[in-house]
């Protein structure tokens, strides 16, 4: 069923406001998506009706909160087609999910001389944890190069893979460029050498159908807030046998089976990795975000976003002085660009004066910016609730700004 934009936009109260005297045009969806009313209602309903600490409560509220909380785990399991709920771990966000793997899998299985592969287009969250681990373990971090369009050079990846490769940690979709990486092929190749693969799915899970069993990734990290859900909630998927082989992450309540001063035994997965009272309200509210996506359907969402992407790419491309950064064949609805002779920060501020929200700067991908020899870009990223008339507003504003230096 084709998506009715008016209906969708009516579900997002935040979109209906003016910024700097102009209607808000929110094009910073790769940073975070807006939340439908159902998510906002679920958050307040939880605190109004169900607030209680989950698991081991002997009363009705605790039982209700526990059931709602665990229901989200089931929905996430279905969303990414994991085998079982136990493979879904709640974290603070993609960054913590990756750090969890570095601190547990990394601590136990990475040793001196081992190699970890990442790509040039990683977010700092998928660079720094591995640098820290490699420094501690005397392991080696190797970087898969990319071409000028912002695509991974697969023949270079092939050359980097060897028996010492223990982990390939790679971004599924680049936040700064929008490139969709051929992760299925990467996973297959890495597995031939016995390496495990972590997918940074922060950007992919909102745009693409991410099926962990089909991809056969060992880990998948992503964040609820980029999927119309609340901030402060992340997910780590891991295959059962790997999660079971990993030591715990943090110590505390929930993650234990039995504690004595002599010895503590640990709980089963996923609880082994969920010490302390979790982010209950946000987990419960996230259900409504997943329902929103499921109701629309991933393929219709993708179609709508692809339409916006090609419409915007064509129109912006005609502007004198417009320099696209990242022109991969396979892209999600992200356009990164610079205007000849202008600093991205200035462009972003002038767009903001027109009510248009974009992101400017290095997008937490400084090595990628260095690869392109630039300080940063202006990034417009579209979601399912954006319209072609909003793209028209963006194009008109960019054209006007470009004229300052490109007459």
């Amino acid at each position, binding site marked *: 069923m084709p998506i009715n934009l008016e209906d969708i936009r009516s579900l997002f109260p935040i979109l209906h406001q003016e910024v*700097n*005297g102009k209607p808000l045009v929110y094009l910073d969806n790769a940073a975070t998506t807006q939340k439908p009313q159902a998510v906002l209602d679920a958050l307040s309903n939880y605190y109004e009706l169900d607030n209680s600490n989950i698991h081991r409560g002997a009363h009705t509220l605790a039982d209700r909160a526990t059931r709602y909380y665990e229901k989200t785990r089931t929905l996430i399991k279905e969303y990414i087609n994991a085998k079982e709920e136990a493979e879904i771990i709640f974290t603070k966000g993609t960054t913590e999910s990756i750090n969890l793997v570095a601190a547990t899998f990394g601590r136990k299985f990475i040793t001196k001389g081992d190699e970890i592969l990442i790509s040039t287009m990683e977010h700092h969250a998928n660079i720094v944890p591995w640098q820290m681990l490699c420094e501690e373990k005397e392991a080696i971090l190797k970087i898969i190069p990319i071409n000028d369009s912002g695509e991974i050079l697969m023949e270079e990846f092939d050359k980097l893979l060897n028996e010492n490769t223990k982990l390939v940690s790679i971004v599924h979709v680049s936040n700064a460029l929008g490139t969709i990486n051929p992760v299925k092929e990467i996973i297959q190749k890495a597995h031939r050498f016995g390496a495990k693969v972590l997918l940074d799915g922060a950007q992919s899970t909102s745009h693409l159908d991410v099926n962990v069993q089909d991809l056969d990734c060992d880990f998948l990290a992503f964040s609820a807030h980029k999927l119309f859900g609340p901030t402060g909630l992340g997910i780590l998927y891991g295959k059962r046998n790997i999660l079971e082989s990993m030591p715990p992450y943090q110590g505390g309540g929930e993650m234990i089976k039995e504690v004595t001063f002599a010895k503590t035994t640990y709980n089963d997965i996923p609880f082994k990795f969920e010490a302390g009272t979790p982010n209950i309200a946000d987990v419960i509210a996230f259900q409504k975000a997943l329902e929103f996506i499921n109701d629309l359907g991933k393929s219709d969402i993708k179609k709508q976003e692809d339409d916006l992407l090609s419409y915007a790419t064509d129109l912006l491309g005609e502007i004198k002085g417009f320099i696209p950064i990242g022109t991969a064949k396979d892209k999600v609805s992200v356009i990164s660009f610079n205007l000849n002779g*202008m*600093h991205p*920060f*200035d462009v972003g*501020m*002038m767009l*903001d*004066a*027109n009510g248009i929200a974009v992101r400017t*700067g290095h997008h937490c991908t400084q090595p990628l910016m260095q690869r392109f020899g630039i*300080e940063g870009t202006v990034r417009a990223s579209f979601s399912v609730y954006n319209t072609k008339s909003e793209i028209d507003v963006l194009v008109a504003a960019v054209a006007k700004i470009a004229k*300052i230096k490109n007459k």
Partner: protein
Amino acid sequence: MNTIQDIQNEIIDEFGILGDDKESTIYYIMELGAKLPEFPESEKTEENIIKGCQSKVWLTTQENEDKIVFLADSNTDITKGLISLLIRVLSGRKPQEILHAQLDFIDKIGMGNIIGSQRSNGLAAMIKQMKLYALAYQTKQNA
């Protein structure tokens, strides 16, 4: 020469004419930046970069008898415009005047709303650096 307060009042009047229109205000700030005297390339050193600015800002001084002349540049046009305002108010003055300047024009023209919190922090860093230069000159003069 007009006092620091006179110049500040001039700026407040100019921005008052622009009103609440953020876009025209930004364009105006950029135009001001474009009029800044050329900054010598040889002075674009690591030492002259002001820490705390998101965009790159270089600041240096020239002595003119007992007064300080500020020279500055930035890699972004809006920041350059902001510096030009500070230079207009503080450059060519005695260290003591600079040290005691109460720069109320920044609040009065609603600069925080125009440039946002990141650039406001940068602006504060620029003012601090200009006052540090003044302090150093004053110390040298008194020595």
